[in-house]
């Protein structure tokens, strides 16, 4: 599988996920599998870093929603940080900005 890179780690009990490249139908399913295989148990929270995510489609949005549900089931926090470019525009267009915890803006990305 190509088109993305995934970095997952737990820092201070928080599951931190960074996706670089594409978050689309080709990659989202594999990302789900990797995350569930490596960290099947609930964590204290989830932070999704999209600083280097260049493209997102509806399957990518589905991946984000599933992560949010996973956090919600465990009554834990879920944040998306450093989302810009096309992925941010898509999330804004579908109204996801209001229910997904987006932290960081274009400026944060520029300074990252």
């Amino acid at each position: 599988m190509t088109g993305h890179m995934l970095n997952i780690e737990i820092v201070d009990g928080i599951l931190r996920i960074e996706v670089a490249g594409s978050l689309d139908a080709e990659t989202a399913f594999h990302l789900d599998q990797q995350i569930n295989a490596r960290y099947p148990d609930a964590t204290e929270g989830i932070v999704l870093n999209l600083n280097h995510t260049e493209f997102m489609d509806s399957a990518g949005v589905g991946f984000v929603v599933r992560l949010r549900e996973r956090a919600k089931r465990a009554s834990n926090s879920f944040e998306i940080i450093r989302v810009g470019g096309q992925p941010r525009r898509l999330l804004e267009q579908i109204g996801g900005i209001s229910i997904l915890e987006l932290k960081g803006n274009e400026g944060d990305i520029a300074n990252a």
Partner: protein
Amino acid sequence: MLKFAKTYSPELVETRRLREEIAPVLEDNSLSENRINDLILVLVEAFTNIVRHAKPLPSEIAVSVETADGNLNITLSDDGPGFTGFEAAREKALSLGDLSMMEHGMGLNLIFSLTSSVSYLPSESRNALLVREPLPASERKTIVAIDDDPVGLKLIEAFLGDRYAVHSFNKGSEALDHINREHPDLIISDIDMPDLNGLELRESLRCDPATALIPFIFLTGVVDEDIHDEANDLDIDDFMEKPTSKGKLVRTVDRTLKRSTRIRQSATAAFEASVTNSLRSNTPAELGRFRFFSEEIAASAGGGDFMVHVSGEDFLSVVLLDVMGHGIPAKVFAHAYSGYVQSIMSLDETARDPARVLQELSSHVARDTRLTSTIVTAIAATFSDSGKVLVASAGHPRPLLYMQGTGWRPVPISGVLPGLSDELPETKTIQLGSGDGLLLFTDGISEVLCRERPEDALLSALEGLPPPDGGTLAKLNEIADKAGHGREQDQDDRSTFLAIAR
């Protein structure tokens, strides 16, 4: 006209290749970045739906892009089973912003929401999804076509109308009026026409600097060699014989327009570099115990700042001038002002008196109607070996004075803009001792530091700093760099600083 045609295997990994290959094609059609992203997303969603839901899978998925009638037509077709629920899905489609979209059918919803016109034609042999995207009208190059033969005009319109805005005329005189008024991007003209013939039309355009460089192509059925020679002597870009094919005409027009654009860009860049170079300030040399340091914070477009200095045996005079605006117009006017100022300061007697320098400048501006259309500010200062400094201002930001023990403060001086008065402006006399200093500057810094008054911005930046020297200016540059970080495109004006220390 076909711009793009590729086939892809019905695999999700192919969506990335599609994105990479189609992006430059959409960029070539002057669509905004957001619009290009939307259209790419629509294609990826349609592609993904086929790969995920078509049973059996098609053997291939084809994508093509063509322009027709001012639209970009993007077609995604496949030879798999047709999707019969397209129109039903359109009726149920949710608009963007409806969050329930996130729960079901988001791909189709995005296709409907992000396109102004989309249709789907299922068929036994090949299904086709057609997205029609209107091209931005203002971005289309304009072509004037002149031919007394209506069939000839119709052919040009048919050959070029899908790519360019074609304005047709059957009379040379009417075309000439239009060209003089509208300045199209390219002209295609027949030669043998009643009224004003093509050669006369070209001669008329060639004599007017405003129209002489508009690319010009003759498209004619005239076969006379002498007329060909005469046409070639009129600085035309091409000579084509009728009949011609669509492909040949389109290629010729494309090549001519691209070459014209390249030449214009290259000439503009060379001219701008030359003017910018001529305005580059030279820092004055030392005068007795005075030391001078200058710094420019240049914006991408650059501005109309410049500094002129002259020196005599026991004095040094400086004028710092700022033409409002930016880019080439400001620089060209600054170049003209620079000539005036140097001429005024060539007389020692005048150069010693900053108020007289500005008074003379004001008289020149008032007399020159070309300069009265500009807004300019200037400050002049004369430094004497003894430490005495005379300062006069013409609507310029106040200089800042550094005195040992009291720190930085503005010099209370004002004056009207050059061209508005022929009275002698006021002169301030300052005595600078050892360790004192002065800072002259143009107001581009206020834009960089997002402060209304450059004086406030600078006083705040200079607070606690020692008297001016090269280090002070480096510090100012650093502050401006940080403040302007990420906003380079917004920063249009240039800032020039001259720090004087004793």
